[in-house]
């Protein structure tokens, strides 16, 4: 039984990063403790050290005053520590009960007694309101239920300390509410819950205590009753955020009356499991306009971007560029005709990390930088040099592997590559996910500049703040459909939040707009 757990002066280095810099954290039984910080602040690393997944370079961990050594998750589990990762650690083709007993010794000797385990699992599931079927295969379960499988795994091991890393990132507001009601009941039987998050509103909603991290350091620990969102934001980012940037207004009429640059008509797309991912999406994007797409992750936004580029098979519907049907043209043809695309996954899709910055600067343009059957390498290098200096990619050497660039600089490289070419339309997906504030600002400025230059921009983002700052109009997607389009200038966060949750955009405004909370809070602070 854990009463107190202390992490003292934890230091952890990764290549090029000091992930934890003498971090301290104290936890007591029966509390819900939030670990708050921006992306890259070192929260996840600290928790993975506590769970024995990473070794620490210096520091110590004390359990009820005794020093403990956590060399592997096995050690942590034995001490009653359990963790739910942001990326679920589930075996998708396996059943719920198989996932639960993995790594345990259940049954006589080496044998696997699933029926006994199922009964125990069922009992736990009922007691905590998890509603799980032990025999169901994980890959057939919705995300919210998969998360409850992760929680039951911990309860089955009788974990006293439950760590949840960004547990709400992939949940709908309803699923989030359900998760929180499960979590709120846990401290009652002496368990401790740690929620790692960058969403202030969730901290205020559920936590008893909050510890704020920044740049690998622990800034402060506060009781939730003695702090305010303003103070926490200060601690989190270190300065007052002022990201609201000047956006020139578009004169209505000069573009709206023209033919839209990019037209998406009644697009239907099936996912890998043959279920419909897009169920009839229609959108028009005009020159010099940013159309934002809001929505909880996984409601068809990525599929929309990929379908427009024809990276994904289209069941029915059409995509028009400047009035010409390009629906079934190849990806290369799409690019040649003038659509650029900045994908969400910059390291695995948007770039080839093993290749040099110079080679990445021509990715997708390789046929343009050639004369005859040979590459025009000199021309390509000049262009890369130009790109690097115009978009302030650091370090500026173009022969280093692109994988060595930080996330922000890699994103500037990709965004620059896609903007700099003479394209009419630009699709941008999650352009600032995981970037630090200065990189966010740079990316936003570039997007606005591209808008100024008259490109038609489709901006897909889960960050409402980003959409409200950049977009002219915001379309909200839910379950593969556009459930509403609002004018960004006089949109209400509450209304967008309701639509993101799949609720009809009604007049009654709830006190806590589901799903849109981080945006709300940030917007208030600005």
């Amino acid at each position, binding site marked *: 039984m854990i009463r107190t757990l202390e992490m003292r002066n934890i230091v952890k280095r990764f290549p090029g990063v000091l992930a934890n810099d003498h971090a301290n954290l104290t936890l007591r039984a029966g509390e819900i403790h939030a670990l708050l910080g921006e992306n890259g602040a070192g929260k996840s690393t600290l928790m993975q050290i506590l769970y024995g997944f990473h070794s620490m370079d210096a520091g110590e961990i004390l359990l009820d005053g005794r020093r403990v050594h956590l060399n592997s998750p096995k050690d942590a589990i034995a001490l009653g520590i359990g963790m739910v990762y942001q990326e679920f650690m589930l075996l998708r083709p396996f059943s719920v009960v198989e996932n639960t007993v993995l790594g345990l010794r259940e049954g006589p000797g080496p044998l696997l007694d699933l029926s006994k385990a199922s009964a125990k699992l069922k009992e736990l599931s009922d007691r905590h309101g998890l509603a799980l079927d032990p025999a169901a295969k994980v890959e057939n379960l919705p995300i919210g239920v998969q998360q409850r499988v992760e929680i039951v795994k911990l309860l089955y091991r009788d974990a006293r300390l439950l760590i949840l890393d960004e547990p709400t990132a992939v949940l709908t507001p309803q699923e989030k509410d359900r998760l929180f009601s499960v979590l709120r009941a846990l401290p009652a039987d002496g368990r401790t819950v740690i929620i790692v998050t960058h969403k202030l509103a969730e901290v205020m909603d559920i936590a008893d205590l909050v510890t704020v991290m920044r740049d690998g350091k622990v800034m402060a620990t506060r009781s939730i009753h003695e702090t305010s969102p303003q103070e926490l934001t200060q601690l989190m980012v270190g300065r007052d955020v002022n990201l609201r940037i000047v956006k020139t207004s578009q004169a209505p009429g000069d573009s709206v009356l023209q033919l839209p640059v990019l037209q998406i008509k009644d697009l239907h797309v099936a996912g890998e499991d043959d279920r419909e991912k897009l169920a009839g999406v229609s959108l028009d994007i005009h020159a010099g306009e940013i159309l934002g797409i809001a929505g909880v992750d996984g409601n068809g936004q990525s599929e929309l971007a990929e379908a427009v580029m024809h990276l994904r098979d289209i069941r029915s519907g059409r995509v028009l560029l400047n009035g010409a049907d390009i629906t079934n043209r*190849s990806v290369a043809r799409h690019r040649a005709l003038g659509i650029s695309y900045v994908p969400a996954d910059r390291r695995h899709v948007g770039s080839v990390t093993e290749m040099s910055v110079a080679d990445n600067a021509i990715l997708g343009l390789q046929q343009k930088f050639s004369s005859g059957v040979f590459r025009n390498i000199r021309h390509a290098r000049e262009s890369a040099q130009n790109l690097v200096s115009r978009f302030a990619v650091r370090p500026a050497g173009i022969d280093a592997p692109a994988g060595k660039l930080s996330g922000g600089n890699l994103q500037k490289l990709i965004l620059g590559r896609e903007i700099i070419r003479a394209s009419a339309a630009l699709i941008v997906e999650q352009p600032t996910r995981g970037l630090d504030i200065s990189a966010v600002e740079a990316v936003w400025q570039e997007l606005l500049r591209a808008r100024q230059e008259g490109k038609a921009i489709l901006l897909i983002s889960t960050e409402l703040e980003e959409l409200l700052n950049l977009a002219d109009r915001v379309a909200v997607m839910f379950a593969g459909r556009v459930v509403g389009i609002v004018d960004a200038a006089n949109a209400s966060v509450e209304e967008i939040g309701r639509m993101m949750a799949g609720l009809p955009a009604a007049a009654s405004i709830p006190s806590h707009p589901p799903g849109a909370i981080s945006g709300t809070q940030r917007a208030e602070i600005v």
Partner: protein
Amino acid sequence: MPKLFERRLAPADSPLAILARTFAALIAAMLVTAFLFRSYGANPWQAYFALFHEPFATLRGFGYTLVRASPLALVALGTVVSWRSGFAYLGFEGSFIVGAVVSSWLALSTAPRAAFGPMPFLLFLPLAILLGFFAGGIWAGMVGILRARWGGNEVLISLMSNYVAIFLLQYLVSGPMRAPGSNPETPLLPRATWLPFILPGTRAHAGILIALIAAALVWMLLQKMPLGYELIVTGFNPFAARYAGIDVRRRTILAAFFAGGLGALAGVVEVLGSQHRLMEGISGGVGFLGIVVALLARMNPIAIIPTALLYGGMSVGADAMQRRANIPSSVTLILESLAVLFLLAVDLLRYYRFRPSSLWRQPPETITHGVPE
């Protein structure tokens, strides 16, 4: 606690570090093999002398070295093209045989009173090269299609296809193409179809020139052509390739085609330059050893040439060693494969810094420069 090996945060990947590791691997392999020599009762120095003297220090031997190196280099080049395109082709024994078969068939067809009758060598050679390249390309291209269209596993399919080719060859030389006589083999190819010998007094033939030209072409493809860029992107990251508008399936099939074509050229060169007839077992493991050469050359088309000479030379020297020191020539297989295994193993060292000084000195303080409480 002093540590002899200190863990690095980032791997050491400078050209010098790579070269140092390669040599460390070679030397480690030679050390282990030296102990093997001892177990055969031979003096390692003499054995190594026998292994390297004949192939590299005698004219006759060097001629044989060139003969052995040519097909090795061609297979290795095929490996470079396909593996760097993300297509792990292992069917070079098969492509080799396909190339050997079609060039033998073409050569026999130019015999007097045969299908085509005599043709000038300057017409015959390009024809043989093209025919071999395309036949091998199609042979391997089929594996590429199975992978690209139906998701078949190219590693296993290409391994298996080797045996199909081996049995096909056995059938041909014991049936339709068999020369009258006892051995299952074809008649001697017409002299006019032989590759010219290039070093007087040796068996060295023009095959090495074909290998050199192929190396230059492969280097040009990969470094200087947009097609090569697309192949490399496909190999590193098929998702990024698709995103960049590259037709990943077609590039995969093309990579397979090139690999099979180059592998078949190895067979063409072996038949027209060295064996001058088609027989069972003609590939003699070159299809696998060529892959080893490419690995040791770290998939660099230029580095393949010296590496192929080294391995070709060792196989020549192995025979000399067997004669003189009574050591089975198969010991060189051990040496050759150990070199690559050690090369893989020393990659572990990329993450470590060797600190002999730690044995007599305290390690420097690396961690704490923050505020100790």
